């Protein structure tokens, strides 16, 4: 049985990489790993050494591969994640066995939920010690089965190169995702003949890219016959590199575009047909448009509960077209009328070939009415509002910066008030909702884009989960900007306590956070404190021009909340604070 995989390596925005065939050479496992990484086009690794990966780090000592030493393995995997999301190339990280490996778990789960290509190497105790509860032994392949696309425990050094080649192939093709390679210590010291690329043996792995012609024909017909269509673009539009095709489709049809949190940047948000995000903290006009639409063209998104609210009342009047590379996503959460399994870019291209030029003036009129009547709003005044800060970041960087976020209210303010113009520039933990993601992710982004302006829009709670990575940013002179929207609370949780637990604020006040300015300074970064609206712009300007990492501690109005809001499981047209 041969390899039945359809389609070549999918690295969005890149030509398919040809890997030149090498001569056979005898190498140690550790050398093989590094050699494979070079052949796969890896430029940088995020990692943390330890006992079981000593041979690997020893080989790295002589290598020209760039290694970024983090302060906690979670930082390594989030940085690899930020690197991957901002470039479209796989992120690579290394951790040692046992606690090193288990420290990756949150970041791996995070990448899995958001379909991010990561190849993670974990050390493992020697083959003879596996299963004996040896020092720093953890069954990381067992632990990560549900949160990886695939994982490997390498038992034969002769299979090492093949394993790594397969891992990169799996991580980057089809629906991308994290793959772990667990390396017993003695595998890295044994030798084997090395040549590249080896044969892949993945008879069960198939990628369908193009989409069924008949379904595409039905979709085109449905779009042409619709009266009130909307497009919902998810992360798959970005990961398949389909943003140009999406723009062409909108150009040709005039259909308004809603994005999910993961799809933010798939369509330029300064365009008149952009409706922003839908769902629990979506805009009122996006939610109304979905409720009234007679056709929903959803692409590369998975109808998460934060998006749909009550699935029974989701898009009640609409025929649903669902384009996704993963067949298991279709029909999982909502009924779908026209399923199309395929890569968003290829399917959009097919649709574009066939679709007539159409327009929906009456529908757009209604949508504009909602936008006019129910805009995103907050009261300004003298208090320092988080929404204003995000808007200022947006204005000052012309919507062209790379934004990472933490998780909570800061994330929703960032999603709603930052006008993102390009794909791969809004990077947020969508599915898992991992507090502490933003800072290390910003490090990964800045490593990939040394000249770019990078902001981590943070909360005072989230940022403390990984703030030790400031040391990493300082070490490598990565001038990331960490904008802490500091309200001294776990704001999102407090909000739910306010609404659903009669204001019983159990354990959500963070009373003794550090002085973030001093914290920055302690690490050798710059710290700026901002307490009033007029200080915002100068502080942002100072931060952007500073050659070192900067924390800006924005002391915001602690009473501010995220509006509008659809309570969990509610219907999208029943919003609070509209």
């Amino acid at each position, binding site marked *: 049985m041969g390899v039945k995989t359809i389609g070549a390596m999918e690295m969005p925005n890149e030509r398919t990489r040809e890997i030149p065939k090498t001569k056979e050479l005898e190498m140690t496992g550790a050398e093989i790993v590094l050699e494979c990484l070079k052949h796969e086009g890896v430029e940088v690794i995020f990692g943390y050494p330890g006992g079981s990966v000593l041979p690997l780090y020893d080989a790295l000592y002589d290598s020209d591969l760039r290694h970024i030493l983090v302060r906690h393995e979670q930082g390594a995997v989030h940085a690899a994640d930020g690197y991957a999301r901002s470039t479209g190339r796989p992120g690579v990280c290394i951790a040692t066995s046992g606690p090193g490996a288990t420290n990756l778990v949150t970041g791996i789960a995070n990448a899995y939920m958001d379909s991010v290509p990561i190849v993670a190497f974990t050390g493992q105790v020697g083959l003879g010690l596996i299963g004996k509860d040896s020092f720093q032994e953890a069954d990381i*392949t*067992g632990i990560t089965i549900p949160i990886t696309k695939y994982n490997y425990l390498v038992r034969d050094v002769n299979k090492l190169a093949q394993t790594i080649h397969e891992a990169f192939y799996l991580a980057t093709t089809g629906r991308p995702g994290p793959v772990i390679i667990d390396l017993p210590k003695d595998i890295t010291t044994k030798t084997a003949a090395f040549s590249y690329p080896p044969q892949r043996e*993945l*008879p069960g792995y198939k990628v369908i890219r193009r989409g069924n012609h008949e379904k595409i024909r039905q979709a085109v017909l449905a779009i042409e016959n619709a009266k009130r269509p909307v497009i919902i673009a998810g992360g798959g539009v970005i990961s398949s590199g389909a943003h140009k095709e999406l723009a062409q489709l909108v150009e040709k049809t005039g259909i308004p575009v809603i994005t999910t949190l993961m799809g933010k940047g798939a369509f330029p948000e300064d365009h008149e047909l952009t409706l922003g995000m839908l769902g629990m903290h979506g805009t009122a006009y996006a939610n109304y448009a979905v409720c009234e639409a007679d056709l929903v063209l959803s692409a590369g998104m998975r109808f998460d509960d934060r998006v749909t609210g009550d699935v029974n009342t989701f898009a009640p009047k609409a025929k649903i077209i669902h384009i996704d590379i993963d067949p298991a996503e279709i029909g999982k959460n909502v009924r779908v009328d026209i399923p199309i399994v395929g890569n968003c870019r290829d399917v959009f291209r097919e649709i574009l070939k066939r679709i007539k030029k159409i327009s929906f003036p009456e529908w757009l009129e209604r949508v504009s009415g909602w936008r006019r009547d129910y805009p995103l709003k907050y009261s300004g005044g003298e208090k320092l509002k988080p929404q204003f800060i995000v808007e200022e970041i947006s204005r000052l960087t012309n919507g062209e910066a790379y934004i990472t976020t933490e998780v909570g209210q800061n994330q929703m303010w960032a999603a709603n008030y930052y006008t993102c113009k390009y794909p791969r520039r809004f990077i947020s933990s969508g599915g898992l909702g991992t507090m502490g993601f933003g800072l290390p992710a910003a490090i990964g982004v800045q490593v990939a884009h040394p000249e770019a302006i990078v902001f981590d829009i943070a909360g005072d709670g989230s940022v403390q989960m990984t703030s030790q990575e400031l040391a990493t940013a300082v070490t490598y002179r990565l001038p990331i900007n960490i904008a802490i929207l500091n309200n001294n609370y776990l704001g999102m949780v407090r909000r739910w306590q306010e609404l659903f637990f009669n204001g019983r604020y159990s354990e959500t006040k963070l009373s003794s956070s550090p002085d973030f300015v001093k914290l920055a300074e302690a690490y050798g970064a710059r710290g700026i404190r901002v307490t009033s609206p007029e200080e915002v712009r100068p502080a942002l300007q100072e931060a952007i021009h500073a050659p070192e990492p900067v924390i800006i501690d924005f002391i915001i109005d602690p009473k501010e909340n995220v509006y509008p809001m659809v309570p969990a499981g509610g219907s999208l047209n029943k919003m609070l604070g509209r």
Partner: protein
Amino acid sequence: MKHTLAVLVQNRPGVLTRISGLFSRRGYNIESLSVGRTEEPTISRITIVVEGDDQVVEQVCKQLYKLVDVIKVSDITKDAHVDRELILIKVNADPANRGEIMQFVDVFRAHVVDIGKNSLIIEATGDEEKINAIEASLQPFGIKEVVRTGKVAMIRGAKPTEK
């Protein structure tokens, strides 16, 4: 409704863990599961009986298919197929009622595979109904122990089960 799935997998370490983990994680109910190698030594066949409506079973198949080690998933419930289970029953038997038990064994075309002082082990194969029937028939004598394999199945006719 019960569905019978024929799943071809790569014979690699951990494959069963991946599959059973998938069922428990996503809340699917396994009625029975049996696994063994096929005519191709690198490939194993897992026969899974799963309870659920068509929509649930469709999700089960898609999720199984997503596993890298899974080569093919076929829901053969609606195809004409042969299915078999094997049961071993240890039943109380003294010289007085052995004859009576042997009559049941003959009726079901089962076999006695072990004779103890006060017990017999009976082996039977058949579809689920027959296996249930023999177990019920022997109940009055006092069943000490039962072990069943779970179902294996194959499509009737010349074509292979994996279409």
